[in-house]
């Protein structure tokens, strides 16, 4: 029965079926399964499979997004029990992500956030129009390993520099890494402002993030 349940949990992530993933997570708890075991032995293999299929071109980005959402749904169900047991999920890294102050474009940032989640990162999304101090505060609050700063406009991308500076002023650099992205952003710009990485697209951003926090692909 447990193996069948594990298979179903894994498959719910592969199918991108958040409703099923949530219900199966509840069932796992009802059956007394350790939530960490449910994550590591059922849901993580599911998302890993999706990632492999995505990398070899058999699945598309929406498949990955739906799988990530299913995974998030399951984890949200399992999380209270994990807290109760004082157990912690193994994560690739803790990321705070947001769009710079004065910019309300968020699709690129959302894509990166979902892709990072799908690849085992714990993502704290601050949304759009985020001030440097909000980045700093959240980084301190959650103990971030990495900050992802998005900007779509040439006039707002300078805000990425401000975030890097604010983190430095707060004494969080170079421990907390910074990754930047957005249509007008380049590797050269990332280097100029002292960021640690530049993600050209959501897929590329995952590899950069993994490299920056020392997590394996």
């Amino acid at each position: 029965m447990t193996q069948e349940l594990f298979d179903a949990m894994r498959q719910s992530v592969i199918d991108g079926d958040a409703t099923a993933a949530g219900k199966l997570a509840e069932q796992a708890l009802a059956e007394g399964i350790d939530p960490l075991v449910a994550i590591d032995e059922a849901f993580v293999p599911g998302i890993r499979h999706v990632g492999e299929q995505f990398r070899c071109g058999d699945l598309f980005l929406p498949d990955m997004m739906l799988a990530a959402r299913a995974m998030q749904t399951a984890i949200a169900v399992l999380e209270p029990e994990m807290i109760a047991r004082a157990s912690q999920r193994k994560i690739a890294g803790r990321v705070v992500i947001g769009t710079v102050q004065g910019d309300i474009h968020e699709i690129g940032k959302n894509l990166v956030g979902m892709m990072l989640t799908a690849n085992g990162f714990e993502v704290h999304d601050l949304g759009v129009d985020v001030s440097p101090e909000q980045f700093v505060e959240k980084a301190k609050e959650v103990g971030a390993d990495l900050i992802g700063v998005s900007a779509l406009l040439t006039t707002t991308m300078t805000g990425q520099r401000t975030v890097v500076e604010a983190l430095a002023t707060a004494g969080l650099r170079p421990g907390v890494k910074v990754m930047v992205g957005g249509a007008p952003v380049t590797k050269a710009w990332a280097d100029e402002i002292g960021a640690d990485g530049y993600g050209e697209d959501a897929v590329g951003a995952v590899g950069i993030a993994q490299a920056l926090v020392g997590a394996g692909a």
Partner: protein
Amino acid sequence: MTMRYQATFLSEADRDRVHEQSLRILDEIGVRFHGERALPLLEAAGARVDRETGIARIPRSLVESALASAPTSVVLGARDPRHDYPLPSPVTRYGLDGTAAFARDFETGERRYGTRRDVELGCRVFGAADMGVLAWPPVAASDMPSASRPLHEFATMLRACAKHGQHELHTRAQAPFLAEVLRVVFGGEAAVRERHPASVVYCPVAPLTHDGPMLDAYLDLGDLDLPVMLMPMPIAGSTGPAGLFANVSLANAEALSSIVVFQLAHPGRPTIYSSCVASMDFRTGGFLGGTPEAGIQSAVLTTMGHSYGLPTTSSGCASDAHDVGAEAIIDKLMTMLPPLSAGSSIVVGFGEIDGDQTLVLEQILVDNELAHLCERLFDGMATGPDAGLFDEIVAAGPSGDFLVSETTRRAARSGEFYLPGLLGRLSREAWLGSGSPSMYDRARDRVREIIEAPPADPLPEATAIELDRVLAEADQELGARSAEATARSPAVAMT
């Protein structure tokens, strides 16, 4: 009498369905308005406004009133009146693509951030492109202060090109300076109001969101009767639904919501229906604008604009290719032909590749050539009573020829047989002998001629000096405000 190519992208019934779905979106889901001016206007007019979320649900009646008060035509004036261009127009002409982040350096070939000089050069080359009627700063001038950058870009365009100019603003504080720039360049407020020599382009943030600072700035500029080109940009699959019909319905809803606000604030203000819709790359999540799907959506939205009786322009001539060449030209034709066949008055897209992110000067002239070729294609052939040339065939008879004929001589100049400006029609030996130039090589030679010649349409010296004064004032005041805002930020204050 001619046989002209036409295409129908949307039946009348489907047009009604797009419209009805857009009305449902506006009424049932609503649109989020940031900024200060729009929500009070909408609320006073009967929209259901939730001040907490900033979402206004807009009833059908407001849309209908707005469509009734929006002008059905406008002449886009130009600094040189010979370039005035009427909307709607019986022919299709073209606009320079705008606000790329990068330029390909003409001398080094390096892709780098754009500068004010790139804006100037792009607009000068565009000025020489005879199919172009609508200038737009093609690249962001990253060497200008960010607080006043759009003003520098706007002014540089108006200096460098005597055709109609459009651009965008990013903050409300920039609006009075733009008004002053326009007064200086065009000789006073009356000229700006009456001749409409410049306009602003407005892009809602998909899905269903209006940017506050830009919207407020444009509403402020309504007192100058400055035309607004509405350019919704949902990306099917990411910021828009992953279906072309649904995505155009969303784009149309965004356009209609914009028309409602602009007409509520200034009834009768020229609002130009346009779009720049795209789709998501399903592998990377990236923006794809140079696709058949973008072309179809552009044509459908052109049809919607026409159905509302609004002056209508379109996006097109777009490419996602990272370099010039065959891929760029395929993309551009693929996105130029549909809005052209839908009868768009202006297709905006000259000069850029790389998903509208890189300006290439040679591409402006290559696109101009594509525009000529497309126009020739769409003009079809004469079919009048004399078109059969029966007497000519009689005269030549079997085994004769048509070389020594007045008709043939006239035909060489008639326009029925297009004589290309950039396509090579040399014999093979002659082509090899001249260094095997490509279309881009010929464009490059022409660009060099243009940019090495004195500017074709300079501003009078006194006007240029006055313009510099306004810009310096803007730098000082907007820069100071920006510094104040930064200083108020606690995190930065810690420094």
